[in-house]
């Protein structure tokens, strides 16, 4: 029963998810509307609570067992609690019952987001450029015909998307556009067909109960 019930639910809701795309009858559409707008939202709320609970559990466990870099888990937990209190009782823009400013120093969610999350996120992503530059210098070699072709295409695209490329030749941006529009699309479309067929096959396997990995590895 412990395994059969989830499989039964997945079968029912998997089929119910497909039918509205095929039958436009109001009864079917209204049922689908109810399932998505009400049931799915309730499930999403539970998933959010489960996710946050799981996150806290993992980090509490890390602190308890003093695993590598356990100190950072404290930062996560403390930040989580503080931002939750500010968000829940102070409101996003400081309009809630909890005061979210000391004098002219605001600490509402929007201010925290703009001054902490945004710079941190941007910094992490900006570092990628340095690694990419270093990696391409060391590894991007014309070792074979295919690699040379890739190298030439990347040069054209890189030059084509910067204004300097247009100054070298007016045809360079158009050539870069052609590479993206034709050879790139040909390759991408082949991959996409493969992915789509694989997705359909996996979805059918899950709906029909053939693929059961999602049930977890336990007994």
């Amino acid at each position, binding site marked *: 029963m412990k395994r059969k019930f989830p499989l039964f639910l997945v079968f029912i809701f998997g089929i119910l998810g497909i039918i509205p795309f095929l039958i436009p009858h109001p009864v079917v559409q209204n049922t689908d509307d109810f399932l998505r707008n009400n049931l799915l939202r309730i499930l999403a709320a539970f998933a959010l609570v489960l996710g946050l609970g799981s996150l806290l559990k993992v980090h509490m466990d890390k602190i308890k067992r003093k695993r590598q870099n356990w100190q950072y888990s404290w930062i996560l937990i403390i930040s989580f609690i503080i931002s939750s209190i500010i968000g829940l009782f102070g409101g996003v823009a400081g309009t809630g019952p909890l005061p979210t400013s000391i004098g002219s120093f605001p600490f509402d969610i929007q201010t925290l987001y703009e001054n902490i999350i945004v710079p941190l*996120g*941007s910094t992490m992503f900006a570092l990628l*450029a340095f690694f990419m530059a270093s990696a391409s210098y060391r590894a991007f070699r014309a070792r074979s015909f295919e690699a040379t072709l890739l190298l030439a295409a990347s040069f054209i695209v890189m030059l084509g998307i*910067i204004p300097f490329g247009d100054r070298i030749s007016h045809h360079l941006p158009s050539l870069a*556009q052609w590479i*993206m529009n034709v050879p790139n699309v040909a390759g991408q479309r082949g991959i996409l067909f493969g992915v789509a067929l694989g997705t359909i096959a996996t979805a059918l396997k899950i709906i029909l109960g053939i693929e059961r990995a999602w049930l977890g590895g336990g007994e």
Partner: protein
Amino acid sequence: MKLTDFLIKLTKIDRRVIYLILAAVVILPLIFPTVERVRVMEPVEKLFNAVDTIPPHKALIIDFDYEPQTQPELEPMGIALLRHAFARHIKVLILSLYVQPLGLAQKALTQVTEEFNSEATSRADSIIYGRDYVFLGWQPPPLIPMLGMGVSITNVYQHDYYGNKTDTLEIMQGIKNYNDIALLVSLSGSSLPKSWVAYSQNRFGVAVAAGVTAVSAADFYQFYQTGQFTGLMTGMKGGAEYEEMVESKLGIKKKRKASEALPSLTYAHLVIIIFIIIGNIGYFIKRRSK
């Protein structure tokens, strides 16, 4: 030292030297910004024309779904789109499919509305919340708004980002579902624009366009080629092209963040190309000497 020895030595440049050079070419143009003019390519021109021809009884949806990581590339696109829509008095519905982008969407909206309202001389000229635009906010999971708005927008978003009941807002009086939407533009660093095509366009026929990061651009051209995307903006250059259109066609002369970032982008690309060439010269010399 022989030339070949010098070239081989060049292939062993310390990575910190590469980082330093790259940092210099990226940072210096940002400290001393100059606007770089660009040639507008067809995908951006098509998007501009699609927005430009939205009739008064229809609306534009902008899905702000970029996060801080992709903000430098995608925010200028959002700002340029908002400037275009507000200048043409097109009704705009703004939303995000995830929580993170909400703060950034709010920031872009505040900036552009302040720009317009600081120059407005009458109420008709002003950009007024609830009349000209609405910030619908976020409804999880993404599938709900994508499919739900095909039936009823105010049913999916019963309250806006600020807690107002959406069906009481003036802008929403003539907007029921996707039939009243002329175009939906998804600004995202992820695969969300494809999901808009899969769920909203395939099922309800709404026109979709996208603004994506340069690194993910290759994934989206197939949708542009088939016409599933009405237009496409890719990376910093895509944003700069739209800014160029907004300035040249509408005469809006405001700060152009993407265009100002283009010199950094240009020098960074050139440095990377030069380093790849140096690396390859050294590789060929080494291979020949073996």
